[in-house]
């Protein structure tokens, strides 16, 4: 898009802050994939990018195009909605596949049976 330079200063500052913040949050999630020790811990890291990371970038996008075309453009909300309702499916599938594999192979990184329920005190 070549329309970016026509953004007023306040919008440019706000949008660059949001996009940069979203990128940094997603980067931290990616670093987490590298630094966390086992599979189950690693599944937590990318959800940084799938929640706050994507949120910041989408809000930035909404502000940019709403200001540029001087009308409300909110179809990014659809991206947010679909990312939010589909990530649990993938994560659950991955976690259950890993748990199944670990229990069959008895690799020891997952409990053989579910731990006893922790009660509310």
């Amino acid at each position: 898009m070549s329309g970016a330079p026509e953004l007023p200063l306040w919008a440019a500052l706000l949008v660059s802050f949001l996009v940069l913040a979203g990128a940094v949050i997603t980067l931290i999630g990616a670093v987490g994939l590298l630094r966390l020790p086992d599979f189950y811990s690693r599944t937590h890291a990318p959800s940084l990018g799938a929640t706050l990371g994507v949120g910041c970038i989408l809000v930035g996008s909404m502000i940019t195009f709403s200001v540029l075309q001087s009308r409300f453009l909110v179809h990014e909300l659809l991206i947010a909605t679909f990312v939010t309702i589909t990530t649990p499916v993938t994560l659950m599938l991955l976690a259950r596949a890993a748990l199944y594999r670990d229990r069959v192979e008895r690799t020891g990184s997952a409990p053989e049976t579910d731990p006893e329920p922790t009660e509310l005190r």
Partner: protein
Amino acid sequence: MSALRRVVPYPLLFLALLAMWLLLQQSVAPGTLIFGALVALGGCWAMVALSPQPARIRRIGAAVRLAGRVFVDVFRSNLAVGTIVLGGEHRRTHSGFMTLRLELTNRYGLAVLAIVMTCTPGTLWVHYDPMRRTLLLHVLDLVDESEWVRLIKLRYETLLLEIFE
């Protein structure tokens, strides 16, 4: 009302699909509206073939409150997981599995709870056992199990019970 129901079996779904179509097309021209309505109608009749369990949202207020809590917790848990990722070695090795008992049995309520748990990094929904009504979780920062039980049961489950049961 029943005549409308016979043509449009799921009015809310119809409206949501139509809204989605209009947002995607970014116009409210008559042609877009008519085509969007056809698409939404098709979606509704596909749902009839699936014959889902009827869902009833009882308290809109509780749903709004839940959305507010989740919004706050998204920021909080992103910060928590971020500090764990960037923190020292000892912070990163406290993860583990835990189980908790849920009173919630409504499948839509459980689906919403699964979405909430995924939206807040740090908790991973692994397996729900409908016979024992227990939920197996993986938690990144598992120092005190009862704290997580309190968070999930008091902060989310009570509201979900109000909304769906």
